[in-house]
């Protein structure tokens, strides 16, 4: 048996589908000993994948309980393409899988929150925009100033369950329309957000001047003066949340 042609295929088949797929002539030693050796590898692989999911979704696991989480995890790992991912990315798509498995929308959204949190944790660095930078500008300069969403910031609406679970740790989240997850410095910050803040952050996905941001976002508002005030208030809240980067 050529190792590269068929030896690796046989080992992979045995690891994925059981020792019956292992040719008797591949390894030296007694069948018991070979089986024990293969089990060490199979256990190491399974353990590493399951732990990676547990560490990615600790709150989801706590919410539905270890046994159910473990049951979902084992089934998830059998889905096409999942084990082609490195361990750090193995949780991609877990939220949709939970829905497919009949879990409540809130549970799946809690998993989505945790995935977004992890994405912010590992996102690229950028200097956050400080409020005092803006306050130093004259009004015309302020309108010409370009801002952009911080690469480690997202804002999204989540299921009420997420607001409830995360709200136990973050004040003001219970009644918020949306949640900001940002990492302006070392720590990931979670803050309540309004729908307008979500709209602004989406509009600042690419660099945009504050003047254009006001025009784009204010178009849908009736009272111009009040709209500008509301937008500026929302922008300040985004800056305070660490969601805007300095260019």
């Amino acid at each position, binding site marked *: *048996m*050529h*190792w*590269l*042609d068929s*030896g*690796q295929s046989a*080992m*992979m088949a045995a*690891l*994925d589908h059981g020792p019956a797929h292992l040719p008797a*002539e*591949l*390894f*030296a*030693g*007694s069948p*018991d*000993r*070979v089986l*024990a*050796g*293969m089990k*060490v*590898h199979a256990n*190491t*692989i399974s353990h*590493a*994948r399951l732990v*990676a999911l547990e560490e990615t979704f600790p709150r989801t696991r706590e919410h539905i309980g270890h046994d159910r989480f473990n049951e979902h995890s084992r089934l998830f790992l059998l889905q096409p393409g999942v*084990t*082609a*991912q*490195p*361990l*750090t990315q193995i949780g991609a798509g877990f939220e949709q899988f939970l829905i497919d498995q009949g879990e409540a929308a809130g549970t799946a959204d809690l998993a989505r929150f945790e995935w977004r949190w992890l994405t912010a*944790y*590992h*996102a*690229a*660095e950028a200097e956050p925009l400080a409020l005092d930078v803006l306050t130093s500008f004259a009004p015309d300069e302020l309108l010409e100033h370009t801002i952009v969403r911080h*690469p*480690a910031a997202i804002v999204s609406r989540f299921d009420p369950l997420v607001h409830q679970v995360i709200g136990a740790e973050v004040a003001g989240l219970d009644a918020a329309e949306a949640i900001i997850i940002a*990492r302006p410095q*070392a*720590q990931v910050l979670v803050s309540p957000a309004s729908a307008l803040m979500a709209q602004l952050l989406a509009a600042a996905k690419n660099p945009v001047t504050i003047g254009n941001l006001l025009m784009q976002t204010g178009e849908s508002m009736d009272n111009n003066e009040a709209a500008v005030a509301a937008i500026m208030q929302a922008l300040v809240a985004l800056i305070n949340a660490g969601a805007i980067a300095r260019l």
Partner: protein
Amino acid sequence: MLADITPPSPLPPGTGVGLKPQHYSQALDLVSASTPSADSILSWFEVHPQNYFSAGGPPHRWLTAFAERVPLSFHSVGLSLGSRDGVDCDELEQLAALCNRYAPAMVSDHLSWSGSASNRYPDLLPVPYTKEALDHFAAQVARVQDRLGRTMLIENPSRYLAFARDDMSEADFLHALCARTGCGILFDINNIEVSATNLGLDADAMIDAIDPTLVGEVHLAGHAREDHAHGTLLIDDHGSQVTDETWRLFERFALRAGARPVLIEWDTDVPEFDTLLAEAAIAAAITRRATRNRQSVRGQLHALA
């Protein structure tokens, strides 16, 4: 042929430990201290580069702080050099980027494979010691070294299985690999104890078979033990203290090799940082004793001559 190879050993010949997030603060304090203390036994740290493949985040902030103060060794677990599909190109590109960012003193990976292009196994699976496997493995090591622009070390594996068609020893395979590619050996002494026990080999002979001039780094770790009707099975889990037998094998090697960069590996059930320091202190003491004994023997031989 072996004498022509320069061992790639830019790491200082002292002790290091695997850097864990729970120890970041304490470890940085230790290496930042202006006055060396009895605890300043660590002269370098090792990390798994795969834990730093993200664009940013706290791990990078910590690693930057360490890289400014002490040499780093990048011990990769994901290149899958023995895979029939060849080295994992995504992993290689990310490793290359990380090397450019942090300029580690050493880069290493394992004599193993970890899946195919469509299925990753987070484990270090065995490679047969055959000419076919050697040809393939050497080509992949050369590919990585070309991309990184540097030589690397390859670690001897913990083995639970021996291939029926092995036609050379592990040491012969590694020596041939070094001769072909210019790479060095990361010699894991715990893996020698594990493999020797699991496969019924002579651990002393395995230690003695390795050419010490090729060894750029040594690993020491603990393992788990299972007793079965078919015999004892040691499992390389890096989850406990270095065993007495591994310490003995390490001293046996150090008597021949002298001082080498030595790492205490502890990856599961990670203990307090002080426990790692205590293990590192033992490794340093053994190295000192072995070095003294080497010098003493050399002195006696010189006197005889």
